[in-house]
């Protein structure tokens, strides 16, 4: 398939100047892309990742590029780790304005619900609903100080379901139930809660397309923009938008950032 015309990445400089953000799962993929964009937008970013060997290099690279970033070891299924990430943001940068919960356990290979192993079920629920609860509770006391924002990373599978990954579709839908309720609950406090449903190049996508060589062409063929998103150039700026005053009248929404793959809203 020939290269699809792609516009330049939008400028984000200054949109988050003076703001502080935590991004979970920022050691790679979409989380890394969001951290990059938020740093480019002027935010100080906490790279919250389970593994130092992925998270620390991202923080170091952002610092080398002139941004403010710190790595925090964080398993989002552990309450103390999430609390520690928030405390580190306050200690290092003095405030917290944006909590992005992106981390999720790999959904595994496509298989019917009844064949998914118990460990995958536990990890998928733990990293999605439980961790969203931890991130929301830990961040809220700081988010309400200055019109902060909670952003959850969900998926088109959480909107239309998934035949290949039925559990993944359910957990990503569950996160949307949470975000809409919190949007109602926290709106009067000035805190906004939104979600992004991306389709982008991630390590998991790399694995899937390597294992299934026709997948990329099929996915592009079913996407009006005919390409798979880039975490930094395509997904990150939307997270910056949701974290910035540009979206100050938006809450409870899920933005499908998928090249038009899902058109059901």
């Amino acid at each position, binding site marked *: 398939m020939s290269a699809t015309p792609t516009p330049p990445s939008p400028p984000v400089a200054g949109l988050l100047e003076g703001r502080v953000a935590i991004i979970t799962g920022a050691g790679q993929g979409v989380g890394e892309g969001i951290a990059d964009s938020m740093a480019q937008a002027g935010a100080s970013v906490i790279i919250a990742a389970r593994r130092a060997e992925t998270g620390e290099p991202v923080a170091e690279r952002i610092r080398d590029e002139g941004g403010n970033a710190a790595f925090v070891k964080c398993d989002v299924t552990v309450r103390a780790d999430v609390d520690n990430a928030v405390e580190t943001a306050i200690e290092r940068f003095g405030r917290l304005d944006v909590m992005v919960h992106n981390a999720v356990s790999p959904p595994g290979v496509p298989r019917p619900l009844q064949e998914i192993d118990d460990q995958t079920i536990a990890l998928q629920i733990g990293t999605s609903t*439980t961790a969203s*609860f931890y991130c929301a509770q830990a961040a809220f006391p700081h988010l309400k100080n200055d019109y902060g924002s909670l952003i959850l990373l969900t998926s088109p599978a959480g909107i*239309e379901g998934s035949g290949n990954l*039925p559990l993944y579709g*359910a957990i990503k839908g569950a*996160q949307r*139930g949470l975000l809409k309720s919190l949007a109602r*609950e926290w709106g009067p406090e000035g805190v906004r809660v939104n979600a992004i449903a991306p389709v982008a190049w991630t390590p998991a996508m790399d694995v899937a397309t390597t294992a299934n060589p026709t997948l990329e062409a099929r996915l592009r063929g079913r996407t009006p923009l005919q390409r798979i998103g880039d975490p930094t150039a395509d997904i990150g700026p939307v997270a910056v938008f949701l974290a910035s005053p540009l979206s100050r009248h938006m809450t409870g929404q899920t933005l499908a950032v998928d090249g038009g793959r899902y058109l059901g809203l």
Partner: protein
Amino acid sequence: MVPDPQRRLAGMARRTALIVGADDPADSITSGLAAAGWVVLRLDDDDLAWDDHTVATAFPDLDGLDLVVHARYPAASRQRDALMELTDDDWRIRADEPFEATIRLARSAHPYLAASAGTIVFLVPLMASAGGEGFAPMATAAEGARLLAKSLAKTWGDDHIRAHAITLDPSAFLAPGEAAGMAEANSLHDPPLGRVPDLSTEVAPIVNALTTDDFTSLLGASLVVDGGLWMPG
């Protein structure tokens, strides 16, 4: 799956439904289906071990299910509390455990639904798709169930199992005072129907209809049966 008149006639004579959940809407749906001639089994024990063998353990002689209706939301999840007031145990009891129990129920019911080319219907409160202040755990578990229906419809179609979700007015799940607040938060008008549909005489027949061969081509539907209060795009 092409409708089979022989199976339709045979099935109508001995259709078995499993209704999961305590209180309403499970109670009223049970009444409505029983009145329509269904043999109705119930699973409504909050202390039950919800695992992959739940159905087999509860009904060891069962050889098939034509219908499973999931409407299980523990009493704790129907209580209003701000998210910041919840303990980790509250979240586990109100959101994560009911959500996982829903997944386990579907897994444990699969062989019985496959044996009968059955239908599974998830009843969810309005808060699932519209949000509900003070009900974040319930909305989380319920929206997970609604999306599970879509995913199962895509996965289990090969097994001739149909999966759907039906969104109901909050009054189907909550105490009247709480339910009124939820409805008001979601609409500036009264239901065009002029009232909330009766669970036993108006919602149960829709559940019943979804199991018939007239609706064979409807898969993964997410219906809203609330009298027109909530009309999502």
